[in-house]
């Protein structure tokens, strides 16, 4: 049996990435009558519940830099980030006309208000604002969150026209556990040998998971890891950096490539956090909703959209990531007008200063075209890291 090469896998993922009509999800839906597709925005939704209903969770990460926004700009002032306007564009232009439901997670006021806009613009589509707890006691936030998930399950049952059993959800949890495990394997490979799995490739491979059925994606990631480890790729004199702030509106792919060209090995990031939001396996016995709730409350990623109750813990996830990956610096890259990332940034920078970790910061939009300034800034950062570490 021959394995596909990294180039072949990346080409497949690139095709998925470029396709703003979501042909693969449409094809999945058309393959069997009654199938339904549920779209979701960043940062996190429990995709297991959608999967358990026999539906395809479809990650909508905005329109990127290839979408011409014609209608979307008429809905937003110039001082609001780009992702809601390109998402509206996807909707109004009919690119999401096959989507049966849209989930807007609790991340910021812009996405929150977009949930209400979607209800008004697309009254036939199931729309849910998915509230998550910002308090993490089992008896308080946990009870609230299990209630939210049960309500969501109830809605999905209505859409699916059938009961969703605990076994259905436990089975889906097991499938997503497997997916998270291979995604984490890929992140480990990147951290250990970033030359073997460049960030721009890994990005496409992970992004494909937002579009494909999870089982297919797990296999795809496995194949990529095998191919990437098997290939001989030159080691460059790059610096290891962590990217942070990109958890919602995604950077143009060219931005990631530009950072690599300027001498960065990106060894960790917060792109598409939904793929690894839950840390470790979620138990596959007992009450599945309780298990998902426990995982969210006690074993989930840190990001600016989440309240950190412990001052001493604030920003430590970045320090730990630096230590674990051997990173030499952190790049704060936030979308323009992104409240969570930009308000969080000074606090995270103070934590890095205290830990003596160098950093730089810049802003982008999903359709940023000019990479030269970013390349120069990142290149200078890499040079200065090398100078410091040599001193």
């Amino acid at each position, binding site marked *: 049996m021959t394995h596909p090469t990294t180039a072949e896998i990346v080409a497949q993922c690139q095709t998925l990435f470029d396709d703003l009509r979501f042909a693969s999800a449409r094809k999945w839906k058309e393959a069997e009558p009654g199938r339904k597709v549920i779209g979701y925005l960043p940062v996190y939704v429990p995709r297991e519940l959608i999967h358990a209903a026999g539906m395809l969770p479809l990650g909508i990460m905005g329109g990127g830099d290839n979408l011409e926004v014609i209608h979307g700009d008429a809905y937003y002032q110039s001082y609001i980030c780009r992702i809601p306007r390109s998402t509206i564009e996807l909707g109004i232009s009919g690119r999401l006309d096959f989507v049966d439901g849209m989930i807007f997670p609790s991340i*910021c*006021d812009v996405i929150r208000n977009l949930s*209400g806009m979607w209800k008004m613009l697309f009254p036939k589509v199931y729309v849910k604002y998915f*509230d998550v707890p910002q*308090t993490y006691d089992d008896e*308080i936030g946990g009870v*609230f969150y299990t*209630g939210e998930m049960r309500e969501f399950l109830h809605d999905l049952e209505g859409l699916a026209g059938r009961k969703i059993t605990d076994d259905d959800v436990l089975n889906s949890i097991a499938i997503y556990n497997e997916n998270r495990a291979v995604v984490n394997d890929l992140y480990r490979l990147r951290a250990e040998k970033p030359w073997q799995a460049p960030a721009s490739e890994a990005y496409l491979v992970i992004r494909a998971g937002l579009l494909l059925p999870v089982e297919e994606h797990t296999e795809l990631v496995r194949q990529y890891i095998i191919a990437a480890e098997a290939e001989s790729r030159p080691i460059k004199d790059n610096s290891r950096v962590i990217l942070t702030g990109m958890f919602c509106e995604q950077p143009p792919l060219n931005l990631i490539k530009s950072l690599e060209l300027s001498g960065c090995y990106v060894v960790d990031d917060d792109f598409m956090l939904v793929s690894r939001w839950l840390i470790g396996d979620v138990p596959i016995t007992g009450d599945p909703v309780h298990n998902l709730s426990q995982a969210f409350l006690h074993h989930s990623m840190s990001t600016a959209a989440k309240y950190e109750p412990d001052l001493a813990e604030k920003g430590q996830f970045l320090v730990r990531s630096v230590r674990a990956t051997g990173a030499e610096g952190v790049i704060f890259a936030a979308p323009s007008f*992104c409240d969570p990332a930009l308000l969080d940034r000074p606090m995270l920078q103070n934590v890095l200063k205290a830990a003596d970790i160098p950093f730089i910061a810049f802003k982008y939009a999903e359709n940023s075209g000019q990479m030269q300034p970013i390349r120069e800034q990142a290149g200078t950062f890499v040079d200065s890291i090398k100078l410091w570490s040599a001193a």
Partner: protein
Amino acid sequence: MRPSIVKAKPADVEKDASMIKQKEMMANHFNRLTDATESGAKVASTFVPGNLNELIMCFDLVNNLPEVNAIQSGLRKQSGAYIMEAERSGHSEDVCTYVKSDIGMMLKGNIGPNGKKLPDPDVLLLSYTGCFTFLKWFELLREQYKCPTIFLQTPYMADGKVTPSMVQYMVKQLKENVIPTLEQVSGVKFDIDRLREYLRKSAKAEDDLVYILQTGKNKPSPIDAYFGGIYYIGPIFGAFRGTDDAIDYYRFLREEVDQRMLKGLGPVTPDGPMAEEKYRLVVEGPPNYTNFRQFWKMFYEEGATVVASSYTKVGGTYDYGFRHDPDRPLETLAEYCLGVYTNRSLPMRIDMLCDYINEYEADGLLINSIKSCNSFSAGQLLIMREVEKRTGKPAAFIETDLVDPRYFSAANVKNRLESYFQMIEQKRNGKGAAA
């Protein structure tokens, strides 16, 4: 032709009893705050939407509202320098200017409106209601003050209703986190009867506030429900809800408004009473504070009165029937937080604005879109179109900021307002009769 205004020099403007009362209340409050270190009083900082003033008073804590401090800095033309100071220290130009004004003020010594230093808070009551920025704002302040921070999450009313599980979630937080921590910080044991008494007083003042706001339905309206409304909501949105002072203030105000109504008078403006009401508007969005009087003047000089506004509902939607209920003390606090304007879904906000236009017989909707405030601003262009469609009344859109003077362009705002008033005229003429 411009309507005539009975112009009065500032020194000649006779202060109403309510104005004198409010001035006194504010001065006393800021003195209480700035004297806190000396007097030993403990201070809780919190936010206007989701302000649990009755609960805070149960622990003898003095309520400090950073939003109000930022507004004061804006009105006193100090916020611009504070914002620049915060940006110099690493805060992005893209984010909320209330936050940056507050942080800049802190960096420059935290001098309050009475010229004395504001105390460091003993506790941050992070009432997370209707605004994501609140969450980050108090994380930023916690980093500085290193004091206990209590988180109270208000679920968003996305589906247009308050569910029992939302109320239960909030009551649990109050019982198990908020109240025990406030007891610990203050050293005062919680007394639910004391809370009931404050809530009873709140409801009394709330009745009068609603009466006053709804006098905007009269022609002419005796009040301006946006610019004047900012003053009217001050006590109840701030540190006075649940006090005798607030009851007295709203009683005085109600009597004055009744008098104006009896005499057929319009609102009081900084240049005296407005003589002719030419346009009746509903306004959505917060005002600009750095050029507040200049902004207001653009309205009253043209004979435009704001008869209803959404901003006067950010600290509670009392005109939709909510009153604090002493018989359900914790539940009522939860329901209050859940119902504030910015915690309401976009479709609910549209319904409210349409109701206002119809019930207050307004000529149209004006949206003042605030650069700083995504909670209000994201979606306002859709709101505008939908309200126009449903009411058949013209709508207009202007852009300013809360407390950042760099985003107030007087010429642009004035041009747009003048065009809007012409549009209303044309609409009236097109129908062949003046409203």
